């Protein structure tokens, strides 16, 4: 059969099937496959090109394309109008599940970090970063924690060698930033920190922190309180109350611990707040003048405050997680529950 005959045959057959389809005697899918399927009638046309002389090839190719276009268009438009033609032909069970997608998720710790970042970004805190492997100087010395200081017992440290260690807090980022920048400054620095502690339900060998630092002229203790109170209300809701307790960090003076009123029992006392009605959220304080000396800031001009927030602790509270290890094992049944 030559090409032209074949084209004619297909055309005839198509006219007939169109009628059959409209009278419901042929199903749409069968109809479509007969012409457009991988082994449909139209696919039989291209091999016939080989038998055509080279000079005729463009002409014949055009013809094939043309009939292909016509038939494709018609079939598609018939398909689009299916519902108008007949409900039987549509044959849809709308209760069938839609095509499944993988359920993606963002890690709960990322979510908390992002939320805290945005709370502070709103009031002019920029986000900066520091290295996880650092020197003793940045992690301790410049933060007014000399060697042989009892405060070193507060943190069990992983060492690479005598002078190099895995940072035990994000406070080290403060020093890096202050060395390179002059006040006024307002920064937060999220990141991973390490502690040489046995792994248990409540502690892991690493965790995440967000460090904050605000230095300007006349920064007052009441500014620290106001800022962190704003933070707590932004994160936990407008009704939470904050309480500040004296504490000790070598790089701040005065130092404080901030508690928020227990969001679970509305301060009545429960297991989570150990009946106290308060939950400890972060450590903070006015930057110690000794720290300013390390970075050559004039202590008579500048003052400021710093704070450190434990991300896991807040994530555990917000998501009701009891075992800290679940954050690090990649359990998708856990991860999938965290929604954007």
């Amino acid at each position, binding site marked *: 059969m030559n090409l032209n005959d074949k084209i004619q045959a297909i055309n005839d057959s198509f006219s007939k099937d169109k009628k059959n389809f409209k009278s419901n005697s042929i199903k749409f899918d069968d109809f479509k496959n007969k012409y457009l399927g*991988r082994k449909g009638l139209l696919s039989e046309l*291209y091999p016939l*090109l080989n038998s055509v002389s080279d000079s005729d090839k*463009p002409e014949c190719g055009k013809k094939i394309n043309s009939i292909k276009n016509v038939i494709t268009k018609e079939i598609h438009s018939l398909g689009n109008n299916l519902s108008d033609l007949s409900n039987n032909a549509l044959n849809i069970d709308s209760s069938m*599940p839609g*095509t*499944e997608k*993988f359920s*993606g*998720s963002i890690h709960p*710790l*990322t979510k908390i970090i992002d939320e805290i970042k945005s709370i502070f970004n709103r009031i*002019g805190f*920029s*986000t900066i*970063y520091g*290295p*996880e492997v*650092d*020197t003793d100087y940045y992690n301790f010395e410049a933060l007014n924690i000399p060697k*042989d200081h*009892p405060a070193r017992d*507060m943190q069990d440290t*992983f*060492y*690479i060698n005598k002078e*190099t260690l895995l940072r035990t807090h994000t406070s080290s980022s403060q020093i890096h930033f202050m060395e390179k920048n002059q006040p*006024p*400054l*307002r*920064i937060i620095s999220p990141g*991973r920190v*390490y502690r040489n502690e*046995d*792994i248990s339900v409540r502690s892991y*060998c*690493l965790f995440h922190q967000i460090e904050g630092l605000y230095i*300007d002229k006349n920064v*007052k203790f009441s500014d620290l*309180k*106001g*800022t962190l109170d704003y933070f707590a209300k932004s994160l936990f809701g407008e009704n939470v109350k904050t309480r*500040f*307790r*004296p*504490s000790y960090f070598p790089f701040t*003076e*005065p130092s404080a*611990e901030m508690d928020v009123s227990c969001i679970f029992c509305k301060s009545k006392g429960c297991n989570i707040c*150990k009946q106290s009605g308060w939950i400890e959220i972060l450590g903070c304080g*006015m930057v*110690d*003048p000794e720290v300013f000396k390390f970075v050559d800031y004039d202590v008579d001009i500048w003052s400021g405050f710093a704070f450190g927030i434990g991300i896991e602790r807040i994530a555990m509270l917000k998501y009701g997680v009891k075992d800290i290890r679940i954050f*690090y*094992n*990649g*359990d*998708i*049944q856990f*991860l999938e529950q965290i929604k954007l």
Partner: protein
Amino acid sequence: MKVSLNWLQNYVKTTLTPSELAEGLTDLGLECTYEKYGNSFSNVVVGEVTECNPHENSDHLFVCKVQVDKKSSFNVVCGAQNVRSGILVPFAKIGATLDFGKFKIKETKIRGIISEGMICSERELGLGDNHEGIMILDDKHVRGSDFRKTMNLEEDIIYDIDLTPNRGDCLGHLGVARELAILEKKRIEKSDYESIEFKKAKVKEKFAIKISSQNNCKRYAACIIKGVKVKESPPWLKENLESIGQKSINNIIDAANYILMDLGHPMHTFDLDKIKSSSIDVRCAKKGEEIVTLDGVKQSLSTNNLLICDGSNPIAIAGIIGGNNSGIDEKTTNILIESAYFNPVNIRKSSKQLGISTEASKRFERDTDIDILIPALNKLCAIILELAGGETVPKIFDIYPRKSTIRKISFNIKKCNQFLGSEISLQSIKNIFDSLNILYDKKSDSLECTIPSFRNDLNREVDLYEEVARVFGYNNIDNSSSCAITFSSFVADERNIDSQIRLLLSSNGFNEQYSNSLLNKKEIDIAGIEENSIMISNPLNKEMEYLRNSLFCGLMKAVKFNENRQEKLFKLFEIGAIHFSNNFTKTGTSESFSLGLVWYGEECDNWSNKDCIDFYYAKGEVSHLLQSIGIDNITFKEDNSSEGFDVLCNIYLGKNHLGYIGVPNKKNKSQFAIKGSLLFSELNIDSIKKSINKKDSKISSWNYFPFINRDISILVSKEVKFSDIEKLILSTDNTILKGVRLFDLYEDNKLDENKKSMSFRMKFQSIERTLKDEEVDVIINKIVDKLKNKFDAVQR
């Protein structure tokens, strides 16, 4: 540290409830919790039931009259079946508390009858589990007497204080009592521990004390008691020590321990007769010197360890632990009591180095009160004389070569208020300093403050600001309500790209995971090159000796975790720092941020989607991700040299290596015991960031002319690479040919087993005019010719 409420009350009487006291101390910076020790009730007396009648509105209640003394009797409704007239009972009056203050007795109405108190059961009083009925007391007890006293029930509250390292002064009851005094607005009488009178002694003893290492020992005091009798401690002492978790040993050691817990000052007792040549030298260890300590352990000493030595040998490691050659035993009759001040840094270094931490060393390393040496010695002597008899040698040794200077700090009230954002009056400040035992002189606009010797943590003006703030109350300082922003202080977030990647991947069905950055040796070898890895010198265990140099292992472990849970199909990603050693940075390490991706499973198992999770699937997702953040035109180059992967392709943008994608082989997967099929990709985020075209991508003219699509299908040898065909097609025209897509690939043995059929769709468009079919045909023909010549392709 544990402190007893009763003990504290030796110094300051308090009316605060246990929880008020705990809260008050916490607000002052001594974070604490408390536990009952002994009894849980208050205000319970012995009462006599004088009348007992059935309740008119109840079949199980009684209405009783309880007589407490001649004048007062109370109406009480009682439900216990063993209540009857004529018995003595524990009676909780109105205002009494039970269960450590949680339950307060109030006047109540029970079924219409007023009840003015409660007759208690054993369990209600915390004395036992019996709740069958009320407690009935022996006749010997006296009506109206305090129930606790008449029953000889000692009660106490034990506070457990989580002390911060700066407050070494609170490592004893005296120190905590000073804080309690602040809460109670009272003063502690110094006479309580300073003026103790001794029995007049007659004995004499020749003894000499020398301090060779004056840097490490600023003051050394001692006294001698002769003729003591070592025996068991009396009950009061045992109980006191036990209540705060200390074991009783014998009267001498217990007495010293008691003073340690009382004043916070560690003292040591030696058996005088074991000290050779009747002399003591406080010196540093000689090279190679050794000592066997009280716990029987032989310690090799180094030259910075401070020692207490007799004529020839060490008899104690100063401030840390005694030697077993000089300790008190049952036969001891003559003792030497040491009361000294040691350099905190020296004690801490030695304690760390020798690995010995004792109650004494914990206090010395936090610095002690140099002025308490003699009062402490006096108090301990008095107790030992009382418990063990004996007589003191009149001479008290006190070697104190260079007296400490009195610490003075100038305090400016205006600056303080400015710093705190407060408005505290001068009078309030003075009251605060009084409560802290800080003396002051007014000098123009400042106060010249004298710091008490026990507060070694107060050295600068700012330290006093903190003291003022904590006594005034952090929560009494108002919060600021605004903050002004300085625009110039903004810094761009250099890791912003991470957030974009996270959003793209999570909405594309990837779960973000975090994994441990610490790996074992085997894992580090799998993931990267060992020479560049970073080892922890003091790892927690062998499983966590190295810092990760790739995200591969973390993701593989997560895959294994989920495979074990029967998950069949999932995608994971992680963004995190990976680390390498080098020799050009200060830390000798460098850190870069990496993105790891995993596809697990073979094909989608949804009724309407049977996508195959293969190399092309993963490659498509990586390409899509990079395109979405602005990186086009990446190339994939196969790397056949890599171990561990069946297929591995490096990903480049031009010459920039961005990362790789691959199919881990069986051996590699078996190291994690993974059975299923998976793909892995790791991309260097820092390289990606550099590769993003920073120029604002301009939108091409909206007023474009229609485009024409043309398809061709060719039959070509399986050896021919897509990228070569693509390159050839694109090289045919650079004016109107805008792109080429492979839209079908078909391999069929019936066709030709060495060939594949490929269908391409070319897009033609001009920015100047509407294209004519003819001009497109010319290019198509050219393409077909070229394909034929170069690859022997046959158009189908």
